[in-house]
């Protein structure tokens, strides 16, 4: 009876009040034929101690590896205060703040989060989160289509240098709305969106252009030129951005002369552990004009009966619980707790701290890359400036390197081969501020040994 407080007396008294003889009787409306037998795959009850022992043994078997994979999930230092506070029962075990007066903690925090995200992206409005970066991009495309109702025949340009999993997710999610997705290629030398591919599109051919900054290869795009091109073609611009990088890079709201219209991205780098891929959160910011097309919760500031300020969910008429089939999205439960963590993270770091983190990552990545590219056969895949990730051409199979470096408990990066077989042997690596000079030396030594 784990977690069930009922004593035999309680049960007897409750059954008597209800006027039945047994708990079984409460299920008497259920057709007999539907009664299931005992479960077969769920094991016998275990104590908390046994569960912790089992799972700690399993976790330990995955641990103690020095990982240089980024590719959409970034290992950063997470201040101890972040999760100490986020996991306080009052934050962790509350639900969506439907009763605003009893949820001012969560509501004010989300309002602060929205404020921070609009500041970071240079845009006007933000929502309270989407599931992750990939679904946020999908929702942004749906939103662009809602905003530009006459989108039939227009295309959404999806560069092939965004995260391949984002591309796949977008395809799954927007598949049913008659939105045409056009994949556009990147330059094999720069890794940036290939401008030549754009020539085919005339003004009003394009509904929206997606630009990842930095892109999947860590390469920085010429976002100003791309945005201006999009605007000149009457297309919306959707930026896919890494939030850490926003401390160092021009915010989407400032791209080109008019700025991007929507910025989305993966919030994980802001205080959320890499943890097998989730829970993370997707963020979405946009220009004011798009606010009524936004999916997800939005918190607004208002006043109470006494004129005192307070916070509440707002623009709920966009949402499924009010608008049902006509809602801007079906999203209901979002990623509230990771947003809580991110808000605390951003408060602790501030712009200055976040910039230190970003710059440190950039410098350390370049440091490692410059050591590696001294080795025979190791070279940059692209000749463009890159942020904290870099794609390298290798003289040997990336999978083999990975296996060999395993012996030193190092994961050298993501083997690009399965994603972009056209590159041959290639590796995408990422260095964050969590790596020390000693870690980099170990990497280089282990790597050298693999080449022998």
């Amino acid at each position, binding site marked *: 009876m784990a977690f069930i407080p009922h004593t035999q007396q309680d049960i007897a008294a409750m059954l008597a009040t209800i006027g039945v003889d047994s708990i079984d009787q409460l299920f008497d409306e259920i057709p007999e034929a539907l009664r299931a037998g005992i479960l077969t795959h769920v094991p016998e009850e275990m104590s908390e101690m046994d569960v912790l022992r089992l799972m700690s043994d399993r976790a330990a078997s995955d641990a103690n590896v020095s990982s240089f994979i980024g590719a959409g999930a970034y290992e950063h230092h997470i201040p101890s205060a972040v999760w100490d506070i986020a996991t306080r029962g009052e934050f962790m075990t509350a639900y969506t703040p439907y009763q605003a007066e009893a949820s001012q903690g969560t509501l004010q925090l989300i309002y602060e989060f929205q404020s921070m995200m609009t500041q970071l992206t240079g845009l006007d409005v933000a929502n309270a989160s989407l599931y992750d970066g990939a679904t946020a991009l999908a929702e942004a495309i749906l939103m662009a289509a809602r905003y530009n109702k006459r989108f039939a025949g227009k295309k959404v340009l999806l560069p092939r240098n965004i995260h391949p999993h984002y591309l796949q997710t977008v395809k799954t999610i927007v598949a049913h*709305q008659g939105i045409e997705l056009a994949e556009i290629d990147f330059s094999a030398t720069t890794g940036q969106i290939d401008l030549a591919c754009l020539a085919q599109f005339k003004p009003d051919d394009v509904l929206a252009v997606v630009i990842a900054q930095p892109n999947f290869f860590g390469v920085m795009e010429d976002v100003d030129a791309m945005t201006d091109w999009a605007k000149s073609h009457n297309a919306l611009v959707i930026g896919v951005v890494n939030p850490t990088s926003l401390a160092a890079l*021009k915010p989407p709201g400032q791209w080109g002369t008019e700025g991007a219209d929507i910025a989305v991205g993966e919030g994980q780098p802001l205080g959320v552990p890499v943890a097998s891929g989730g829970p993370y959160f997707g963020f979405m910011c946009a220009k004011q004009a798009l606010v009524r097309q936004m999916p997800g919760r939005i918190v607004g500031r208002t006043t109470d009966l006494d004129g005192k300020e307070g916070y509440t969910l707002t623009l709920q008429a966009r949402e499924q619980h009010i608008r049902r089939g006509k809602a801007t999205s079906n999203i209901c439960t979002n990623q509230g707790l990771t947003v809580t963590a991110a808000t605390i993270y951003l408060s602790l770091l501030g712009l200055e701290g976040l910039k230190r983190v970003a710059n440190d990552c950039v410098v350390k990545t370049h440091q490692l890359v410059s050591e590696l590219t001294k080795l025979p056969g190791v070279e940059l895949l692209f000749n463009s400036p890159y942020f904290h990730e870099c794609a390298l051409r290798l003289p040997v199979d990336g999978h083999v390197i990975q296996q060999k470096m395993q012996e030193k408990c190092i994961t050298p990066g993501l083997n690009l081969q399965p994603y972009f077989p056209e590159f041959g042997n290639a590796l995408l690596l990422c260095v964050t501020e969590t790596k020390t000079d000693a870690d980099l030396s170990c990497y280089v030594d282990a790597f050298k040994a693999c080449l022998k």
Partner: protein
Amino acid sequence: MTIFDISTTGRRATAQAPLNIANVDDLIPKALQRSQETILPEVSELEVVRHYTRLSQKNFSIDTHFYPLGSCTMKYNPRGAHHAASMPGFKQRHPLAPLVYSQGYLSCIYELQEFIKDVTGMKGVSLTPMAGAQGEFAGVAMIKAYHLSRGDFVRDEIIVPSAAHGTNPATAVMCGFKVKEIPVKSDGDVDLEALKQVVTERTAGIMLTNPSTCGVFERDIETISKMIHKAGGLLYYDGANLNAILGRVKPGDMGFDVMHLNLHKTFATPHGGGGPGSGPVAVGERLLPFLPTPIVGKQHQSEKVTYYWLTEKDIPQSIGRLSAFMGNAGILLRAYAYSLLLGRDGMHEVAEFSTLNANYLLKRLEQAGFKIAYPTRRASHEFLISFSREAKEYKVSAMDVAKRLLDYGFHAPTTYFPLLVPECFLIEPTETESKEIIDAFVEAMINILDEIKSNADIVKKAPHSLPVKRLDDVKAVKELDVRWESGKNS
């Protein structure tokens, strides 16, 4: 006071970032660098800790209050499951880590897939959906893929009861379907006559919860199932209410072809102030080829068991990927731990005691004079009461009562859902609450009923004892203020 109002230019929590700022001028082209400074808060570590600690205290939560929010299953979230999922090895594992550094994680996830098959009576599971609504999306997209794979292109309608949760129709639309709403009868069951009217060759499927959002078990489910299947449609089970029948009735046995589970409800993972949740999908035979990826597979390699990822290559007809990685891994680990803590008998008890609590609370409220929406029915794990009488006689709305309950130290039940019952409360006590707390809740309800009759104003103006009084929702929309700006009042 927001954190921005506390901010002071130049202040910093210095321990939390690299001590020196690295110069990147040679590495990032000038034109791409940020010049405009953001106004992020500039605060000390103590200010952050104090601000958010105090903010947290303004929340009601399971850990502090009875929270009988119908349809949401706000039960105790075991701290042990949270700790189990927070082991350093789990937190540090990169989602794209090589398999050799993934066996611990994958073994848990694989077993959870098996557990879910067991409790749902389904044949295949994908854990990737990140909440109930995404599970619905996956399910309905699979229904679509199924029909298309059979060359069945005319099915463009999804049937949904009027009492359904908003995510159901919203999902159907996202998947490109038209929504056909059907009414619910006065006893809470679906109107079979009306259903017959809408079932056609255009019917792709029906979405149902059972027990329904009316808090009763759909007794005609076998008939409905036959009816839909005969018409060539499929049945989607919205698992939000699975708590009511966990281990007692398997949706697969009721004839459902596909379903989602809300692990943040039935499997007691924390709701986190709005999320994250997790909405695994489970399917019967027919939909196996369409499951979203990735899924965890298990193989025996020379004596040794290893776990690996099944991707689009293995499931070529898959509806595809629903997230950058594989959904809310940490929530899955919590649900796995919860399953182990409960064990098979514990799963059965969830249904038993959540149902016992709901029926007891229903009976007590009925005896106290509250209007029960479906008085002739057993409650499932939740039930509906209506304040239509009080609204008419005393101009007190269900929302007023909800706010007044906050003053009594109880979170309000779900209000105004489902919409078909006017001025309603959907009340779900859950199995982890004690008889004492239910009795205390009844007492508060009785008091409020007295207040309505003797001093309605105290109810209409509630709450009185919370950090803020009744908030102006209309103003929040009309004078939209969704971000802090320097100089704005605070």
